[in-house]
């Protein structure tokens, strides 16, 4: 998993590519989320457009990020999810937890404040 971070209209966007599978990626992701929360940047969008697939450990990474941001009073959303990732979110019923958007523009516009 590779992560590039940028900002768009006060929304922090994590462009993730590759596979989300846990291991050392977990700590990297958590540290990035925590750093941004500490800086008061609590509107985080996860761009999954270049993610091939995700396993349950990878889902755990996203859930932990979602929980940290939500507990800090922020918003954590997903954009550009593929059919395969949508399939796993549906099976795990996480599609009802994560707010997700087909495009980055829609997602960025959806953040409040």
């Amino acid at each position, binding site marked *: 998993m590779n992560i590039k971070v940028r900002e768009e209209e006060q929304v922090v966007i994590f462009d993730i590519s590759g*596979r989300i*599978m*846990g*291991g050392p990626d977990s700590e990297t992701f958590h540290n990035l989320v925590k750093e941004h929360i500490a800086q008061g940047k609590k509107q985080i969008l996860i761009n999954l457009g270049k993610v*091939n*697939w995700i*396993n*349950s*450990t990878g*889902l*755990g990474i996203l*859930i932990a990020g979602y*929980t940290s941001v939500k507990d800090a009073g922020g918003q954590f959303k997903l954009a550009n999810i593929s*059919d*395969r990732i949508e*399939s*796993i979110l549906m*099976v*795990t*019923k996480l599609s*009802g*937890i994560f707010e997700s958007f087909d495009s980055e523009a829609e997602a960025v516009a959806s953040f409040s404040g």
Partner: protein
Amino acid sequence: MGTISGTSEVLRWEIPSLFRWLGVIDAALQEVGQELAWEQDELNQVSVAVIEAVSNAIEHGNRFEPERSVQVELWASGRRLRFRVSDEGPGFERDRLDLPTPSPESPEFMKSRGRGLFIMRDIMDAIRIDREAGRFVVELEKELKAPVGTGH
């Protein structure tokens, strides 16, 4: 890689216990699904379940020790699929298969423990565990809704 005979086709793969090789199994499943004309949604779901079993075998079974192998076998007969994913680890207790999937309203839902097993169970028709020749085996079965082609 595999043998094909009559109506029952068997494919076998073996990888070292590192996540980097998960992609090989995933790519193979995509290829098999296309060759046997599985419907795309079902191919997505089956591959999610199998990748989950292989991930578990690598992480919890073989503890990422590359010299320990994970083996995947697939029997495809008509619309019935049977996967056997085996590792060299201690396995888990059979009663874990009966744990109920937490509802999204439950506090347990956001915890990671057991999610992989729930994914496999919810996607596949049947999941069994076994021990054979020193290996811990997870067997997954599914009958596809869409007709399976016979290939080229």
